[in-house]
């Protein structure tokens, strides 16, 4: 990967500035600072409850932050619904439990947002949807309902559904954690292909192999803070922080 060389000339697409969030009195995110460059691929890892999901869910305002600034594509996320809608249009999200719409076919899942949010003609939306379904290698399932597909297939549909909105950034919230081991690879392959096409990605994942292959930067979080961030080679072989070393020794043991 040659990403580090050209990093300086690329624009910052997501900027988190001193972001803090509380659930009631529980301080989940503590002073998060993070800049994501266009085309950058970031893997976020850390123990459960460390705030990694909450952080990326703040980026498309599924969670509200209470202090600090989040600026996506030059648009600040505030209570302004108009800004939130614009940001959500440009930021795709893939969930741990897929969250496909079970009452719609795979194709309808993919065309819904382009037609209703982007006001695209149905025909065009369907053509684009088929292109993306081909890209995630399930065009032949287009007319089935999500309930008829395997977990891996559902997750690939979910990725295609997000891509149909032609987003600037893709957020992945533990996309392989709910999958059977046999299906993890097919989803990761799609994600790797997506990464190679130059998409800006932020992935919360425990797939360290994936992190090593595609990430420009790995971020380690614990107790609501960013503990360490580095490029993957350094991160895995030469972790600086004690907490990171402990975490890595636990997950890489097997």
């Amino acid at each position: 990967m040659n990403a580090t060389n050209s990093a300086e000339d690329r624009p910052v697409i997501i900027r988190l500035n001193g972001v803090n969030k509380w659930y009631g009195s529980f301080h989940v995110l503590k002073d998060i600072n993070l800049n994501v460059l266009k085309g950058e691929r970031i893997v976020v890892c850390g123990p459960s409850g460390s705030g990694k999901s909450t952080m990326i869910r703040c980026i498309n305002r599924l969670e509200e932050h209470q202090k600090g600034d989040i600026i996506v594509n030059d648009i600040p996320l505030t209570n302004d619904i108009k800004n939130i809608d614009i940001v959500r249009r440009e930021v795709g999200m893939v969930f741990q439990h897929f969250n496909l719409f079970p009452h719609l076919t795979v194709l309808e899942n993919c065309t819904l947002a382009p037609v209703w949010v982007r006001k695209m003609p149905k025909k065009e939306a369907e053509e684009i949807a088929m292109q993306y379904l081909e890209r995630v290698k399930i065009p032949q399932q287009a007319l089935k309902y999500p309930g008829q597909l395997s977990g891996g297939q559902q997750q690939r549909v979910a990725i295609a559904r997000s891509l149909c909105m032609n987003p600037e950034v893709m957020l992945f919230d533990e996309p392989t954690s709910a999958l059977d081991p046999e299906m993890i690879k097919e989803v990761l392959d799609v994600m790797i292909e997506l990464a190679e096409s130059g998409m800006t990605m932020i992935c919360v994942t425990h797939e360290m192999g994936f992190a090593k292959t595609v990430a420009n930067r790995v971020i380690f979080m614990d107790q609501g803070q960013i503990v360490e961030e580095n490029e993957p080679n350094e991160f895995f072989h030469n972790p600086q922080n004690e907490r990171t070393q402990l975490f890595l020794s636990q997950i890489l043991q097997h």
Partner: protein
Amino acid sequence: MSAFKPLPDLPPPANTVGPIGWARSNLFNGPVNSVLTLFALYLMYLALDWFITWGLINADWFGESREACTSGGACWVFVTARITQFTYGFYPEDLIWRVDIVFALFAACLIWLMVDRSPAKGWVAAFTLFLFPFIAYFLLRGDAFGLESVDTHKWGGLMLTLIIAVVGIVASLPIGILLALGRRSDMPFIRSVCIVYIEFWRGVPLITVLFMASVMLPLFMSEGVEFDKLARAMIGVVMFQSAYMAEVVRGGLQAIPKGQYEAAQALGLSYWKMMGLIILPQALKLMIPGIVNTFIALFKDTSLVLIIGLFDLLAIVQSALNDPKWLGYSVEGYLFVGFVFWAFCFGMSRYSMRLERKLNTGHR
């Protein structure tokens, strides 16, 4: 390395499938159940035997008066001789064609919408919802387009029952949905208004509501202001039922996983699009049994309007029973009313089951 070769699929043992298997596992799966099954069959035989002999074989069907009832069985003459009155109430007989047109049009629309393959469903649905009510109103009420006026106190019988029920059903569902959404809203004002509305209307008996609408309301209105009694009753029914409907809908909304909301939001759908395209279609599907349950209860509750002097099907049959010429045929009268109510309710129930099967897309 040996290749994996799955064993072939064998058919199941013969006495576990088909009608014999069904009877073995459901009716005769043990001595106690076998005895109970036989006993129940015997009871059914007794009841059916009585009904068929009394109500069908020995019955009299047509005639002008009770003199036609000679064979000792059921005297359905009571019903057939007065069927016009039971259906249309006191509607002027030479204008009954107007009611028939409304019924026929409504039935045609319903059948069109229920048949899976009929074309242009959207237009027919729009016609039924938005245009048909006006056509029906002007045809039934008259007083416009050169149609003779028929006052609503002349409406009665099955016609009145159906009008109140259909208006109640069609109006209470959308109002109920809005109330349910309001009750789950983040906005404190809207939420409180909806909660107060729902809890108030659920807390008073329907009879009280109807009584208030017909007796109390006119007291508060200034002299000379007349507000149609039927309209008041219908508004009362709609307000009452929409509160029930709201709680059914809320139950369905709560059954939709949070992930569906999040996925819709993450795709940039606005609140109303999210509700209309993602949440409500799924929730309404889950709620079909509850909604139809409420519809059926509403349909039967319409007979309570007799308390304020409207003659629905039950009231009109009851008043016919008081006719000295027909004393003593209450069994036939009530059986007839019961059968008509049952037929409509059973129809709704069957249709809802078909709808559930049709909409089932292998959920989750």
